[in-house]
């Protein structure tokens, strides 16, 4: 199966972000993590490209998921 590109936009204080990343790690999903509190370019990308103003924002290929929802992630990632 072709690996999906997974990008996770997070902030350091956000507990849901931690939980989302742990979920991905526990399920062996590789992802890129962008700290949008520090990384202005990533913040801009999240706001404009993903059209999101909340973290965590998780992009799986072209699909955007805002917030951590285990069931939705499982479905989108085919877990």
């Amino acid at each position: 199966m072709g690996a999906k590109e997974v990008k996770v936009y997070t902030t350091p204080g956000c507990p849901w972000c931690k939980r989302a990343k742990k979920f991905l790690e526990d399920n062996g999903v590789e992802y890129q993590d962008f700290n949008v509190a520090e990384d202005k370019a990533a913040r801009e990308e999240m706001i404009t490209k993903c059209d999101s103003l909340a973290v965590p924002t998780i992009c799986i290929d072209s699909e955007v998921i805002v917030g951590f929802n285990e069931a939705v992630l499982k479905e989108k990632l085919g877990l």
Partner: protein
Amino acid sequence: MPELIIIGGGPAALTAAVYAARKRIDTLLLSTELGGQPLTTLGIENYMGYQYIEGPELMQKFEEQMKQFPLEQKIGPAVIALSRLDGGFEVKTDNGESYQAKAVIIATGKRPRSLNVPGEERLRGRGVTYCAICDGPLFAGEKVAVIGGGNSALEAVDDMVKIAEHVHLVSLTPLTGDQIVIDRVIGAANLSVFLEHEVVEIEGSSRVEVIAIRDLKTGEQKKLKVGGVFIEIGLIPNSELAKGIAKLNKLGEIEVNCACATGIPGLYAAGDVTDVPEKQIVVAAGEGAKAALQARRYLQRL
């Protein structure tokens, strides 16, 4: 049919689940998620056994401990209805399933209160946020409003004055937070404070642009240009299920006695959803344990 259904996924529910499973009560745990309110708590320094632990890590440990014991759980679907049957209860979930049991423990906790003003729901996640610590950094360099007058609102102000261009604090009442927090926060050069003002509307097409507020004394309205609205106006109990069955107090909390009993035989409640004073993880966990043990006594008497 299980003997006991526990509704909830926070400290009270998971502790009740461990106690019930260890007593070999045939138990079903129903919750939209596992972890509850501590998931949005960063540092915990008053849960005994840990000098410091972060909320999500503590709840991970609760979950791991619960998984040591045989217990049926359905995580995801939301419980939407609870009704009494002859000799028990029926619980319905939003995926169309229903479950019956002889006893039920409601441990559904609390959720952030919303303002209930036009624009709030539509612009949620589009500048309206209920987690300042999560989304605050997204509004660096912008003008924002923090709504509320308690410690959570003041902490959000404290974080935001450091990174936002300007912060408006809007509170329905005089500030109710601890004086030590008020002293630390009030007085920042980029902070305006609007006490005894209410939020009338949140405006914006695809994201928050303006909030309209009204002075409660004079009735005068003004509009503030902001990119973000942080709503920190406290919590409300997830007690809708119990409405019409058990007694709720004026805050909407389920009234229980010191044995977690609601007054309806077989129906118990535990943790932040109840009128037990002090909403603390350690208190909720203790109440969950008590509810499970009391439910067992009830089941044995049947």
